Every structure is written in structure tokens, then in C-alpha cells.
């Protein structure tokens, strides 16, 4: 059987989540591997969420926010960019494959971009295989 | 050998919300196994660890009396800071029929033999009335009542809505063999009882220290102001008893966190007289 990765999506309420909605309503086809959690702003994401997701068995984490400058709250995603950049460096230096974590700016009108990003990311994660580095093992 | 860390299964059979703020509830628990019930022999003043798997354990004073066979009761206040309060919150979310665990009985009890033949003054404040309720039930039981002298109770809460066990208080008021002095800091439109702080009421009631023992439980601030009243009335420190509160985990004197001096509150306490407390380091 093919490996179907489990991917956690964390999407900002105002842009990416709405963009994902648009991808759905315009009937774009994209893989179903992403399970999305909505947050009010990408800057609400605590890097521990991402570490925890990997610990609980996520094969990849995709974060979506508004384009810099378009944040609903003005500057939220500018802070988020710094936070997520550091998170990425942490994951990489700890030994996680950097391709398992991706941040994309997707606006409410970019349903097509959303579908493309999900497809591309799913394929990337698929190629990497199951994530075992952080996953909590019960034994 | 009995493993002291493994709880016994119990079922929640009744939940009573005691106060209008909804954060104090009394849980009635029935043992699932008959032999556990028989082994669970306790006296008023003892406590037990209530255990919810997945959440943890919390030490709670037993609010029922051994003279009420068939079940045990615990009155629990929902606590909560960022760091604490998981178990009490989970308890408050329980419904009748839920299965939890109980470990105990633990600790010492109110010294029944010491109290026998003496007049007993019970002083309680707010939610800390639980093991006092157990004691009152125990003393009022018809088999036990003759063993004790006069019983008087001073019980206070901030408002009428914050008094626990309202029905029982009313029933006790009607009895002749117990003198009740229920008071609130501030009454409301429907409150016909006494108004005033517990220390003031104690002064007014003015129990005689002659052959009498005071049993006192309440928030630290109440105890601090009530103690001088009893000293003034002539009570000796040996005859003023209280129940200490400390963070506990194991309940059997092993985990080491509840010690005050060389005493473990969970095992050598929680009941101490103020004379005993005087000998211990001020570390509680």
C-alpha cells in the first residue's frame, strides 16, 4: 500500500483558511492528507504546537498565513515570520528533515495556490516517508 | 501485602452542589467491591486520595461519618491556578455513575477518645467545614451522643449562599442536644440568621474552657483571628485542635513533600493540637 502521510495544517482564519474554502468551492482537486486547524492569526502559532504535532505522529506540518503586509491585524504575520523561521532552524538543527515543515502565504483569493501548495507538500512528505524522529513510541 | 499506592474502585452515586457559586460539590461514593467497603474503616478527620486515572490524585477530607454506612462522601472545591487544580476540575465534571478510585483512609483523625466526656466547641469557616461535619454527625449519632458533653457549633461563611450542607444545618438547629451558631459575614434579603465574623461570634458565644475542647478548621485568616479569642476565654493550647493543609501526593508518608519538621502531615496529621504545632518549625 502506498504511504499516505498525515499532515497537520495550521491556517489563519482570514486568508489561508478562506483560501482553502475557495479551493473547495471551486472544486479544485488536491490530496486529502492535510487536516487543518484554524487559528485567528499565524502569529498565534506556538512553536510547541509544531513540535507536539510531530511528537503525536504528524508526518508534516504546513502553516498558512496572510501575505506579509496583508495581515488582518496589521503586523501579526510579520512576527509570525520570525517565529516560524526560528522554529524551522530548530527543527533542522535537531535533525528533522526541513522539508517536513513549510510556511506559505496564501490569501483568501488564492484557492488555486492552496491546492498547488498542498499537492506539492504532500508529495514532498510522501517522498520522505513516515516521520519517526520525534514520534512518541509506546512500548 | 497491600500495595498502598493502588486505589479501590468506587462509583459516584450522588452529587450535590453546595454553594451558589457552583464551585463546591459533595460527592457520594459507593464501593464497587464489598470487601473494600469493609476494609475502609475510618474516623472523622481522616482523608483519602481521590483518583481519576488520566488526571491524577487529590487528597480530600472525608465529609461523611462512619455512622453513615454504605457510602463515603467528599466535599470538593474546584481549585485552579495555571499550575494546579486538574483533579478537582475533573471531579467537578463527573456525572452520577462515573467510576473513580479512592485510596485510604489516610492520616490520623479527630481524637475521639480525647474528646469523650468533654464539651466540644466546633468552629468552622467556609468550605473547611467538611471533616467537622463528619465529626458532628459522628457525635450526634444516638450510640455516640452520650459519650460527649455539650456540643456547640460556630459555623461561618462569607454569604448565606456560601454555607455548605444547608439542610443539615437546618436540621441540627432544631435539635436540642447541639447548639448551633451559624453566621455569615454579610447577609442578604432572605437571611434571618446571625451576621458577623467567626471570631466575633465566638467571643459572643463565649464557651467555657472548663472541660472543653475546641476543634477549629477554616481559612488561615479566620484561624489567626479566632485563636486569640479562645486563648482569652482560657482554653489551653492542648485543647485547641486543627487540621493542617499541605500539598500531598502519596498519603502514606513516603513521598516527602508534606513534612512539617519530622511530622508528615499525611501520616502523623492532619489533625494537630496547637500545643503540638508550637513544637514544630513554622513551616506551614
Amino acid at each position, binding site marked *: 500500500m502506498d504511504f499516505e502521510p498525515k499532515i497537520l495544517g495550521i491556517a489563519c482564519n482570514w486568508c489561508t483558511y478562506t483560501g482553502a474554502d475557495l479551493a473547495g468551492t471551486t472544486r479544485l482537486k488536491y490530496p486529502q492528507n492535510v487536516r487543518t486547524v484554524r487559528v485567528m492569526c499565524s502569529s498565534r502559532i506556538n*512553536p*510547541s504546537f509544531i*513540535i*507536539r504535532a510531530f*511528537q503525536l505522529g504528524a508526518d508534516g506540518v504546513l502553516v498558512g498565513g496572510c501575505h*506579509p503586509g496583508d495581515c488582518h491585524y496589521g*503586523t501579526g504575520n*510579520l*512576527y509570525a*515570520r*520570525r*517565529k*516560524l*523561521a*526560528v*522554529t*524551522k*532552524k*530548530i527543527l*533542522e*538543527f*535537531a*535533525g*528533522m*528533515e*526541513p522539508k517536513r515543515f513549510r*510556511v506559505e*502565504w496564501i490569501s483568501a483569493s488564492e484557492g488555486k495556490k492552496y491546492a498547488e501548495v498542498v499537492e506539492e507538500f504532500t508529495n514532498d512528505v510522501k517522498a520522505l516517508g513516515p516521520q519517526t*524522529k*520525534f514520534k*512518541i513510541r509506546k512500548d | 501485602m497491600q500495595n498502598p499506592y493502588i486505589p479501590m474502585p468506587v462509583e459516584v452515586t450522588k452529587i450535590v452542589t453546595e454553594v451558589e457559586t457552583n464551585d463546591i460539590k459533595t460527592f457520594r461514593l459507593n464501593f464497587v467491591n464489598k470487601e473494600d467497603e469493609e476494609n475502609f474503616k475510618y474516623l472523622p478527620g481522616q482523608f483519602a486520595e481521590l483518583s481519576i486515572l488520566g488526571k491524577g490524585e487529590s487528597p480530600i477530607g472525608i465529609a461523611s461519618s462512619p455512622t453513615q454506612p454504605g457510602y463515603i462522601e467528599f466535599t470538593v472545591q474546584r481549585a485552579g491556578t*495555571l*499550575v*494546579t*487544580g*486538574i483533579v478537582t476540575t475533573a471531579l467537578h465534571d463527573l456525572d452520577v455513575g462515573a467510576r473513580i478510585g479512592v485510596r485510604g483512609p489516610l492520616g490520623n483523625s479527630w481524637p475521639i477518645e480525647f474528646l469523650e466526656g468533654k464539651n466540644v466547641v466546633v468552629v468552622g469557616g467556609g468550605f473547611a467545614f467538611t471533616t467537622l461535619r463528619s465529626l458532628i454527625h459522628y457525635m450526634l449519632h444516638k450510640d455516640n451522643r452520650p459519650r460527649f458533653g455539650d456540643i456547640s457549633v460556630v459555623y461561618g461563611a462569607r454569604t448565606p449562599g456560601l454555607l455548605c450542607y444547608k439542610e443539615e444545618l437546618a436540621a441540627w438547629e432544631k435539635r436540642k442536644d447541639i447548639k448551633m451558631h451559624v453566621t455569615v459575614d454579610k447577609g442578604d434579603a432572605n437571611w434571618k440568621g446571625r451576621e458577623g465574623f467567626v471570631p466575633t461570634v465566638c467571643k459572643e458565644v463565649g464557651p467555657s474552657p472548663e472541660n472543653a475542647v475546641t476543634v477549629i478548621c477554616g481559612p488561615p485568616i479566620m484561624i489567626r483571628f479566632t485563636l486569640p479569642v479562645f486563648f482569652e476565654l482560657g482554653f489551653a493550647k492542648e485543647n485547641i485542635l486543627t487540621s493542617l493543609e499541605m500539598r500531598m501526593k502519596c498519603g502514606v508518608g513516603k513521598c516527602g513533600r508534606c513534612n512539617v519538621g519530622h511530622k508528615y502531615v499525611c501520616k502523623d496529621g492532619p489533625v494537630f493540637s496547637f500545643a503540638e504545632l508550637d513544637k514544630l518549625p513554622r513551616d506551614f
Partner: protein
Amino acid sequence: MTAMKKIEENLRKEAKRLLEGGEVSVVLAYGRGYDENHPMPFAARTVEDVDSLVFNEYCTFNLARYLPKYPPKTKIAVAVKAADSRAVVQLIQEEKVRREDLVILGIPVTGMKDQKTGEVIDNKTTCNMANPVLYDILLGDEIHGFKGGSPYDVLAELEGMDHDARMAFWKKEFEKCIRCFACRKACPMCYCDPCFMDASRPRWADKSPTPDGHLMYHLTRFYHLAGRCIDCGECSRACPVDIPLYLFHKKLAKECEDMFQQAAGMKIEDKPAMVNYGNQDSDEMLK
């Protein structure tokens, strides 16, 4: 007289003057421990206490750690080496201490030694600077022309590894952790109360020492110190089981410097990097 002895003498002289004149109510410096190689952090409060002050190459502690616990408006003199002074600057940036409450006694020094191993720590576990970045009084002569390589040289080996090897490396190191929290308690920047590890709602990591909990604890702590860690290396020296935490902190400090063009604790006027954003920030950093 050696440079160290001279610093010790100046330290006593200045401490005495400050306490006598009532300029400060406490001098945070170093005192005698149970032997020469094991001095202790020491808070001198009276002129008599001053005789107990010492300074030698084993006085590695970062005294900035003690600053936030004093109530505001307490006048404090604090002895700082280069990295420690950066910690003070960072604490001022984060409004944990006030510049006007401090008399900073700068110690220009190199060649400090690890108490356990006796190794010189300059660029290995600390930021490899010789002179404090901020001080009111300098206790020794400013050091010129000190070179000892970049503080990030020690990263080369780990950076050269592939991801799997690095994961294996950290797993092995974290496995040693006993959760004594010495790293967090020794750190001048770890002043949160309660720490995320103590919070029970949510419970971020297992309370008991499990490898998964260790991973969560350390990675999150690294994140919390990103852009704030001033590379004093105190966490690694405090660790009773010798986990090289400094390597991760150094890596993040290096990356943050690259990405945000700002090193932690260099200037009082700076805003801490992680509560700020810059016009020059680009999506490149997310790649």
C-alpha cells in the same frame, strides 16, 4: 600582579566604596566556596562582607541571573564579564531590570576555566568576547586585540552532519537529562513564572522524565531563548550530566544574527528580536 588579582583588588575596593557611600545596597560578585577552584556567587551587603569577595579564573557564573529577583528600585552593583554584561543589557531591553538601579562593574577578562574540567572556555562555550559591552566602572584594563576564533567555530562538526546523525546526537544527549532544571534555573534569561514546563494547563510535556518530554522541554527552551541567548554557556556548566546545550543555543544565536542582523544583548536601545520585525525581513528566512 596578575590581571585576575588586580581585578579582585579593584572589585573589593569598588564594592567597599559603593557600600560605604550607600550608593548600592548589595554588590553581586564572587565569594569563597569550599575551595579555591570552586568560588560561589556572593551578595555582599555590608562593608565586612567585602573581604569575602574573590575573583579568579573559575568565577564563571553569570550573576545577571540574580538581578530580576530584587524588587525594583533596589540599587545593585553587579560584577559582569563580557557575556554577563550582554545578559544585563538583554534584561534591560526586556524591562526586567532598570538601568538606573544598576552600577555595572565590568570585568575585562579572557581565559576563564570550566570548574569541572579546567578547560579554557573562551570561544568554546561562551561568546568569546573580552570586554563587557556595558559598564559603569571597569575593574581591569580593557583588552585589545584579543582573538580566539569565532564563538561559532565549535558548531562546525554538528553542522557538517546529516539530519539523521544530528537527530541521533541530540537524542543521545537528551536521554541523559534528569530534569533537574539546572539549565533553566542557571540561565539569566529564564525568569518566567511559571515556566511552561510547570504549567499543567496545558501540560506541554510529561512531568516525569521521559525522552519525549526531554525533547519537548529542550527544544521549546531553545526556542524561548532564540534571539535572547547571550551565549554565556552557564546552562551547560550547570548541567550535572554534561549535556552540551550551548551548541544548540549558539546555533540559534548564529542563525538569528544572520536573519535579523542583531545579536542579543549588545545595545540597550535594541528591541528583542523575537518581539520585533524588520523591513529587511524576507521570506528567504523561511526557506
